[in-house]
C-alpha cells in the first residue's frame, strides 16, 4: 500500500515537473519575442506591399548577397513541415532540418543563447502566421563561399552553442539586458566588427566600426554613449530621433521601428543598463 502511494506521489511530482517542459509555447509571448528578436527585418522584403515573414530581404555582405527565407508555416515555401525540435536545432545549432549548416548570416551565433522556453514561444507564434507561398530566393554568394560544409570550420572557430546564462553578481536588470542584447536582439551581429573570415572580433564586442554591409556602425560601449543620457537613449530607441532631431541610418531606423520601440519600458531600461555596464572600448 505504502509503495503504491509513493508511486502515485512520485508520478504526480514527475508529471508536474515535466509539464512545463512539454507544454505548448505561448504564441502571444512569442509575438513579443519575435519583435525583440527583430525577425521581421531579414525575413520580409523591403517594399510596401511585402508580406510579413515571407522572406526576400537582401543582405549584401563581402561574401555575397544573402536573402532571408520565408518563415511562414506554408508547407512548401515556408517552414510548415518543420517540427518544433527542428526549429530549436536551427536556432540553437545553426542546422537545417536536413542537417546542413546555415550560413551565419542567419544570426544563430546570437540566437543560440535564447532559452528553451522562449524558443518554444517563438515557434508557437511562427505557427500562427498567415501562410505565404512566396518561394525563398537562393543566396548569391562568391564562388568560394558557396560550400556550406566550410561553415563547419567557421563554426569550430567562432560558434559556441548554448543558452544564455545569467552572470553571477550582476543585477537582474543587467542580466535581462544582456540577454536582450546578446541573444534575442543580436545587436553584436552588426555592432561587433568582424575579421576577414566574417568571425566576430571578441575583444571588440559592440565597439562598432564597419557593419556587415560595409557601412559605419556605432560603438555601443560606454565610450560611444557617454554623451547620451538615459532619457536620450530611451527616446532614440523609441522614436528613432536624437535630441537634435537627427535621424540614424535606415538600417538602425528599421531596428528601432521593429524592435527597440516595441520593447516594454522595463526591457528597454534593462537593455540600456546593460550597455552602460559594458567595458568601455575605444572607437
Amino acid at each position, binding site marked *: 500500500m505504502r509503495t503504491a502511494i509513493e508511486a502515485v506521489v512520485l508520478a504526480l511530482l514527475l508529471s508536474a515537473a515535466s509539464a512545463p517542459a512539454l507544454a505548448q509555447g505561448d504564441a502571444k509571448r512569442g509575438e513579443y519575442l519575435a519583435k525583440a528578436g527583430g525577425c521581421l527585418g531579414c525575413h520580409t522584403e523591403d517594399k510596401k506591399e511585402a508580406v510579413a515573414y515571407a522572406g526576400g530581404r537582401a543582405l549584401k555582405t563581402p561574401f555575397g548577397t544573402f536573402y532571408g527565407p520565408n518563415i511562414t508555416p506554408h508547407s512548401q515555401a515556408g517552414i510548415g513541415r518543420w517540427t518544433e525540435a527542428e526549429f530549436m536545432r536551427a536556432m540553437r545549432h545553426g542546422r537545417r532540418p536536413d542537417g546542413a549548416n546555415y550560413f551565419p548570416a542567419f544570426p544563430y551565433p546570437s540566437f543560440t543563447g535564447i532559452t528553451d522556453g522562449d524558443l518554444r514561444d517563438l515557434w508557437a507564434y511562427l505557427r500562427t502566421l498567415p501562410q505565404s507561398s512566396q518561394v525563398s530566393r537562393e543566396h548569391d554568394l562568391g564562388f568560394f563561399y558557396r560550400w556550406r560544409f566550410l561553415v563547419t570550420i567557421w563554426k569550430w572557430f567562432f560558434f559556441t552553442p548554448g543558452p544564455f546564462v545569467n552572470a553571477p553578481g550582476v543585477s537582474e536588470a543587467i542580466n535581462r539586458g544582456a540577454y536582450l542584447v546578446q541573444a534575442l536582439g543580436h545587436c553584436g551581429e552588426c555592432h561587433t566588427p568582424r575579421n576577414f573570415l566574417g568571425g566576430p572580433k571578441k575583444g571588440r564586442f559592440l565597439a*562598432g566600426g564597419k557593419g556587415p554591409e560595409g*557601412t*559605419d*556602425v*556605432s560603438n555601443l560601449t560606454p565610450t560611444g554613449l557617454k554623451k547620451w543620457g538615459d532619457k536620450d537613449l530611451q*527616446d532614440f530607441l*523609441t*522614436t*528613432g*530621433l*536624437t535630441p*537634435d*532631431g*537627427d*535621424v*540614424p*541610418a*535606415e*538600417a*538602425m*531606423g528599421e531596428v528601432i521601428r521593429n524592435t527597440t*520601440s516595441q520593447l516594454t519600458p522595463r526591457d528597454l531600461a534593462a537593455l540600456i543598463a546593460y550597455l552602460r555596464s559594458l567595458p568601455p572600448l575605444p572607437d
Partner: protein
Amino acid sequence: MNKKLISAFVALSVGGAAGSALEALAQAKPDVLVKQRQAVMTLQGKYYGPMAAMAAGKAPYNAAAVQRNAGFLDNLSRMAWDGFDPSTKGEKSRALSAIFENKAKFDDAAGRLENETSRLAAVSMKGDEAAVKAQIQAVGKTCGACHQDFRSK
C-alpha cells in the same frame, strides 16, 4: 538703335550679371560650403524633430506647428545639395566619398527627400492627422536611407 534692341541688350547684361553672381556663390571655399550644408542639416533636424516626436506620439499633435515646420523643411530640403561640391571632398566631415563617386545615386536620394518633404507640406495643409503622421515617417525614412549610404556614423 531701336528701343526693343536696347531693352534686349539690357536684359541680357542683367541676366549675365545675375548668372555670374550665382557662379561666384558656387565658388565659396570648401570649408565654407561644408559649414553651410551642415547648417542646413542642423535646421532640418530642428524642424523635423518636433514633427517626428508628434508622429511617434511622444508630443501632442499640433497641426499649426506641423504646417509651419513642414513648410520650412520643404525649403530646407533643397538647400544642402550644392554644398556637396567635389571641392569639399578633402574637408573634415561625416560625408562619405560615395557622394562624389556615386553622384547619380546621391542625386536620386536627394530627389527622394525633396519629393517626400513637398508631399508633407501639401498633406499638412489638409486636416488628415493620420496621413500627416504617416508622411512625417516617410520623410524620416528618406533621411535615414541617405545617411545609411552617404554618411559615416
